[in-house]
C-alpha cells in the first residue's frame, strides 16, 4: 500500500519535473552559457542544475514564484560550478548527455551580436553577472532581490552601473569589430 502511494507520488513528481524542465530549458541554458566557457562545461552545468532541481522539487512550497525558485537554485549551482571549474583539474571524462543542436540565426549580424553579448556578460564579475542575467531574463527588481538576497535598492543601483558597463563593452566591441 505504502509502496503504491510512493510510486504514485514519484510518478507525479516526475511529471511535474519534466514539465518544469521543458518550460524552462531555454532559460537554464542561457544561464549556463553565462557561466561556462565550453560546450562540455555547459552540458555539465545543465545536467547539474537538472539534478539539483529534481532534488529540490519536493521542498518547493509555492511561497515564491516557480521562476524565482528555479533561478535561485540554478544560480547557486552555476556559481558553485563556476568556482569549482576554476579550481578543478581538467579531466578527460565528461558527462555528455545533452546534445545541443544549434541552427544559427539567418542574420550574421544578429549571431555576431549574440556572441558579443555573451562575451561581455562573461567578462562581468560573478555577482554582477548574476544580476545582469536575471535582468536580461526580464525579472523584476523584486524578483532579482529575492533570488540574489540583495536589497531592491541595491539591485537598482547595481543594474544601473552594470548596464552602463555592458553597453560600454558592446559599443567597444562594435568599434573594435569595425
Amino acid at each position, binding site marked *: 500500500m505504502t509502496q503504491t502511494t510512493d510510486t504514485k507520488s514519484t510518478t507525479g513528481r516526475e511529471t511535474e519535473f519534466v514539465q518544469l524542465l521543458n518550460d524552462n530549458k531555454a532559460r537554464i541554458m542561457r544561464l549556463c552559457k553565462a557561466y561556462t566557457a565550453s560546450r562540455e562545461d555547459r552540458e555539465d552545468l545543465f545536467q547539474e542544475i537538472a539534478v539539483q532541481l*529534481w532534488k529540490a522539487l519536493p521542498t518547493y512550497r509555492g511561497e515564491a514564484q516557480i521562476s524565482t525558485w528555479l533561478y535561485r537554485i540554478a544560480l547557486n549551482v552555476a556559481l558553485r560550478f563556476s568556482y569549482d571549474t576554476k579550481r578543478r583539474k581538467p579531466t578527460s571524462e565528461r558527462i555528455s548527455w*545533452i*546534445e545541443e*543542436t544549434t541552427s544559427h540565426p539567418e542574420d550574421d549580424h*544578429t549571431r555576431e551580436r549574440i556572441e558579443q553579448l555573451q562575451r561581455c556578460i562573461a567578462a562581468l564579475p560573478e555577482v554582477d553577472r548574476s544580476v545582469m542575467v536575471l535582468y536580461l531574463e526580464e525579472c523584476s*527588481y523584486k524578483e532579482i532581490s529575492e533570488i540574489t538576497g540583495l536589497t531592491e535598492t541595491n539591485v537598482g543601483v547595481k543594474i544601473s552601473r552594470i548596464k552602463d558597463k555592458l*553597453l560600454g563593452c558592446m559599443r567597444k566591441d562594435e568599434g573594435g569589430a569595425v
Partner: protein
Amino acid sequence: MQNSDAPGSKEIQDLQQLWQESTTNESFTIKERAMMTHINKEISNFNLLFGTGQWGQIILDSSLFCIFTLELLEAIWHNKPDKIAFRLAFMLTALSFLVFHGTVKFKMRTFNHNTSREYLQMQLMRVKQEINFREKTTPLLSPVIFGLLILGFWNDLPLWSIILLVILFISLQIANFSKKLISKELYPLRDKLQSALQQLNEH
C-alpha cells in the same frame, strides 16, 4: 517592474531581446549512447564495490550460509553452547545478505534489459536497495552481531578476546568506510540515474 524610461533603455531592451534570441534556434536532444556509456562505467564501478543482486554475490552468500549452518549444526550436535552464539550470528548475517541479494536479483528479472529506460530503472532500483540496506539494515544488524559475539566468546581464552577486539575495531572501520561509500558513491550514482531517467522521459 523594470524601468523602461531610463537612459539607454532602448539599447537594453534590444539586448534583452538579443539575449532571449540566443537560445531560440537551439534544441536539445539526449545523446543516449553517450549517456549509457557513462552510466555503464559507473555501474561497473558499483558492481565492483557492492555487487548488489549479482550471481557472484549470491553464490558467495549461499556458500557462507551453508558453511555456518553446518558449523552451527556441528556445535549443537556436540553441545558446545559457547560456540553456538558465534556461529548463529554468522549464519544470520550470511542469511540476511543472501535474502537481500536474492530479493534484488528476483526484482531485476522483472525489468526488460533491452530498453534504456527499463535498464536505468533497474539500476536505480539496485542502487536504492543498496542504500536502504546500508542505511537501515546494517546499523540494526551490527549491534546484534557484536552482542552475540561478545556473549559467545565471553568465556574463551584471552587470545579470542584480542581477536574479538580486532574484529570489533575492523568492523567499526568498515562501518565508517561504508558511510563514506554511501555519500561518495551511492548518492551521486542514484542522482545521476534519476536525472538520466528524467531526461529520457522528457524526450
